[in-house]
């Protein structure tokens, strides 16, 4: 049923720290590696070694230059499904293939019911859904539903692959429906934001904006390094003359 279920209050999702993300693409690779054998497998690659590489990815990292009166900065920006509270991708689905789980709020696709009409990808403002032209169905982030409840994994590994892979701890996983959870407190502390709040999809995932420029940082760059050894020959002579 593509009508949205009444929720249990549990809202599993990600909190992504734009301050510490270094854009290393480890989460992208880990996501692809896990999920091409996971719940929505395969994550088809088309012409992977050719000139027109294409394929399905659940997580993509952009880089932006954010310029304000305080100056400019590079912001690495991971983009994946936000597991919205009112996901239009689910309600527009004509077959019931798209659904939102009542128990934890994860938005999933039943591949066996998907007719590949692509309407859900039109309805998602965030570009979270990607069509698999090889299989003919839509695919999307599962929040690693096959990891987070997986008893075969060690408890510390029961997090989405992208979270496990992040070397700078820029990705956090938890229950955003519980105001006392670590992720909810992190969002409150750092002023986490929704993407495109004006569209009213009410995303579960939150983004932590980059921290403000610090006053404690050195205001002037360190002086340039001196050459270790004096230059010899004619140029060395010119250098010595001009230095006097």
């Amino acid at each position, binding site marked *: 049923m593509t009508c949205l279920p009444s929720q249990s209050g549990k809202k599993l999702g990600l909190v992504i720290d734009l301050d510490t993300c270094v854009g290393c693409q480890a989460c992208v690779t880990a996501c692809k590696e896990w999920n091409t054998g996971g719940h929505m497998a395969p994550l088809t690659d088309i012409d992977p070694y050719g000139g027109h590489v294409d394929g399905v990815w659940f997580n993509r990292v952009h880089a932006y230059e954010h310029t304000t009166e305080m100056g400019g900065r590079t912001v690495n920006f991971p983009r994946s499904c936000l597991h919205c509270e009112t996901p239009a991708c689910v309600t527009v689905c*004509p077959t019931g293939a798209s659904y939102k789980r009542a128990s934890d709020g994860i938005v999933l696709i039943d591949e066996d019911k998907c007719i590949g009409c692509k309407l859900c990808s039109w309805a998602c403002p965030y570009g979270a859904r990607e069509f698999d032209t090889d299989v003919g169905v839509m695919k999307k982030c599962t929040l690693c539903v096959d990891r987070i409840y997986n008893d075969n994994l060690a408890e510390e590994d029961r997090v989405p692959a992208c979270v496990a892979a992040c070397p700078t701890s820029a990705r956090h996983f938890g229950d955003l429906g519980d105001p006392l959870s670590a992720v909810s407190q992190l969002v409150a502390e750092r002023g986490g934001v929704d993407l495109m709040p004006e*569209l009213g999809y009410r995303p579960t995932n939150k983004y932590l904006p980059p921290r403000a420029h610090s006053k404690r940082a050195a205001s002037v760059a360190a002086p340039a390094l001196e050459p270790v050894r004096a230059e010899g020959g004619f140029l060395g002579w010119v250098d010595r003359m001009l230095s006097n």
Partner: protein
Amino acid sequence: MHPAFSVVFFTTATGAGYGLLALLGMFGGFQIIPPDFWLGLVGMGLALGLIVAGLLSSTGHLGRPERAWRAFSQWRSSWLSREGVASVITFIPAGLFGIGWVFLGRIDGWVGIAGFLAAIGAVVTVCTTGMIYASLKPIAQWHSHFTLPGYLIFSTMTGSVLLNALLQGFALGSKVQLAACLLLTLFGWSWKVATWRYNDRLEISTTANTATGLAGGTVRSLEWPHTEENYLLKEMGFRIARKHGARLRQITQLLAFALPLGLLAIVFALPWPLAALLSVLAAAIQFAGMLVERWLFFAEAKHTVTLYYGR
């Protein structure tokens, strides 16, 4: 948005087909048109032929067309599902109306009622088609008050011009029908121009700032996550050059509105069969023009995901 030909043809053909079906059903119900065998056969054949061709074309857009039957299940939430259900239900009164008219030679009694029901079904189906687009918030050009009326107006307009061609062909044309075609085409033209003006001045509140959550200043895309175009850019990042857009709008206005208006105005003064010839020509040119219009409807629509790519 990528203008897939299967969907462009689907909405144009079913729009014209349901428009014609609605008018045939209504005029049949009120017994304004004679229950002539050939008129019924050609008219209902044309209407249902356009609808069936359009619906079949739409399945060409699907990744797994063999599962299309599943699309009838989620009518509680999905406009696409509602469209599927409405289109199939409409076939029942439309089929009865066609059988009564063509094979029983009558459009009174239950056949007339079936005609009315088919007309209602046709209008409902066109509404559901319009709502598929009008309900999509990420595409501001579609999520507007112009979209749903546009689908209804163009369906009535093309259906009416087709009906005129049909009636003129059987030497049953009337000045009233011609005048209706002219007025509807003028109305359609004004609606399209108004829609374009609205879209050109649209101030979209969703920006690269709100898309990334980075408040204030400017957000410029430095680097894409991938070097080649992916599904998102192929499907949602379709762009046409501004100069082609302007040229295509001129072609739309010429083919869909100006030329049919001119031809139909001349028909007023022509005897049969010249009147029939020009009427058919007007309908064919208008259909071609509406294909261009529908292509532009997709090509000029901008999806919010393009903001992530700095487009």
